[in-house]
């Protein structure tokens, strides 16, 4: 029952995208997410999809791995689409049944919103597919450095984050082991009503908590024993350095961003008319 929860999506192959600096990838992902919200034409969506496809190809990821993350939120996407389809009342009515109406505006809005969500999630998942959790938290720490001046304990936050990230897989593994052990004693987790099921989880949760506290304690001791302290100027084992590829990536995404803005504010949908004619 626990193995369906996908974590650590990282897809371990070597590619240009994988090798990009984590900070750059973080910034570019944010840029991409912002850009998506400016997209409002079918041409814009096509451009975004093409851009994503290019990145996926460069990253040597199988299409399936990207689609998997979409599948995880499929329910929300479908739900939002259905709500949208029936709630928007402007425009000419195309179809109606009793008090339900579907208008042409609703159809367009729904298609666009669905595309936006799907592209957004695919784009964001590219970050976790090509960057290890440790790289991400290192990158975040580096990007948050300026906050030190307003006395935000950036290093501590980053440390907490990387420890948490580090132990998530351990926690899953351990959960699996305990579940197996209790199943071996005849426990069943998928029978009975809601209360019975919640109760059945106790034999798993209690040892899990006990072990987690024990582990946290041991880790704290171990860090202490090695004189860890968060306040001093610690150096990094892996120093992050920007390279040519990072700069190129930055310009490519900037170009994409500008194209999206041009399409929205300069051409104002003219490209859609050109490509799809009367359909839009």
């Amino acid at each position, binding site marked *: 029952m626990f193995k369906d929860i996908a974590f650590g999506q990282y897809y371990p192959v070597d590619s240009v995208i994988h090798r990009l600096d984590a900070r750059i990838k973080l910034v570019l992902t944010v840029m991409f997410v912002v850009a998506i919200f400016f997209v409002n034409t079918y041409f814009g969506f096509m451009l975004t999809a093409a851009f994503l496809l290019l990145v996926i190809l460069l990253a040597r990821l199988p299409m399936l791995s990207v689609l998997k993350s979409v599948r995880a939120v499929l329910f929300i996407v479908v739900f939002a689409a259905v709500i949208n389809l029936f709630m928007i009342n402007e425009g000419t009515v195309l179809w109606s049944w009793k008090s339900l109406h579907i208008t042409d505006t609703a159809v367009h809005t729904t298609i666009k919103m669905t595309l936006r969500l799907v592209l957004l999630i695919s784009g964001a998942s590219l970050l976790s597919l090509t960057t290890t959790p440790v790289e991400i938290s290192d990158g975040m720490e580096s990007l948050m450095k300026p906050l030190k001046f307003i006395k935000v304990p950036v290093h501590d936050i980053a440390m907490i984050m990387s420890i948490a990230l580090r132990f998530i897989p351990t926690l899953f593994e351990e959960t699996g082991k305990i579940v197996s*052990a209790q199943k071996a004693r005849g426990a*069943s987790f998928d029978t009975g009503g809601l209360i019975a099921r919640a109760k059945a989880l106790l034999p798993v949760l209690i040892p899990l908590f006990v072990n987690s506290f024990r582990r946290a304690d041991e880790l704290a001791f171990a860090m202490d024993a090695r004189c860890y302290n968060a306040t001093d100027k610690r150096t990094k084992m892996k120093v992050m350095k920007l390279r040519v590829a990072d700069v190129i990536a930055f310009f490519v995404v900037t170009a994409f961003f500008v194209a999206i803005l041009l399409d929205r504010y300069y051409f104002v949908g003219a490209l859609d008319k050109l490509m799809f004619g009367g359909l839009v």
Partner: protein
Amino acid sequence: MSAISIKNLTYVYSKKTPYEKKALDNVSLQIEEGEFVGLVGATGSGKSTLIQHFNGLIRKQEGEVVVDGLDASKKKSLKNLRFRVGMVFQYPEYQLFEDTVAKDVAFGPKNMKLPKDEIDRRVRRAMEVVGLPYDEFAGRSPFELSGGEKRRAAIAGVIAMEPRILVLDEPVAGLDPAGRREILELILKLKAEVSPTVVMVSHYMDDLAETASRIVALKDGRIVADGTPEEVFGDREKAAEAGLDLPTAAKIVDALAARGISLEKTVVTRRALVNGLVKYRKDKSDGNTKAGDENV
């Protein structure tokens, strides 16, 4: 009918991902009732994967698993299977969860839906057998026990189900020599009193040579040696090929051979070593007298 019958079992973790890993490769194995099987092999050789097939914790992908006459791939027989195969995992003390030892030990029998007095009887018996006197330990919290006591409590939780087959994954890992010996003696006692068939995973060749009636060695998911300890360790070349360490007794035999004292290669236990040496001395003194006789 074999206690455990496995045919052409192949198992692959994380199929069709970059993490794909073949943990078992066409494994066939018959274990008869009454056997004490020592399962050995390097880290990652597939031992844990194999034993978790015995009670359907891992559902077979390819091949056939029949345990005690039950097909382990049938969902219907799973529950029954789990009560017939008692499985003690590595570091079982981390699975204790109830607020008293007695309640924790009763978890398995309760899941079996046994009547209350039968549960009580089994809890008492299991605790006595593992050496945790009921009157002293029943009301204590499992989290306040020592490491060795915790492990005993956890083992009691498994044997309270009185399984026909007992499977143990590295039951002595992380124990001191005294604790190790105690657990081994406990396992032999359990075999005699509760579960006639035992499968034990261990990295301690000495323990296995002393206790197991049969050694099965895995390497990269394949069975590379199978036989009595004498056969498996006696064939030094094959044992080395299988990546097996030798029991201390066998190592001593080799060291003695290097010094010109040759004993049987099938000597793998302390007792056999002592017997072998006594016999060697006797033969030699007999031989000496003979040789002396000739000289006269």
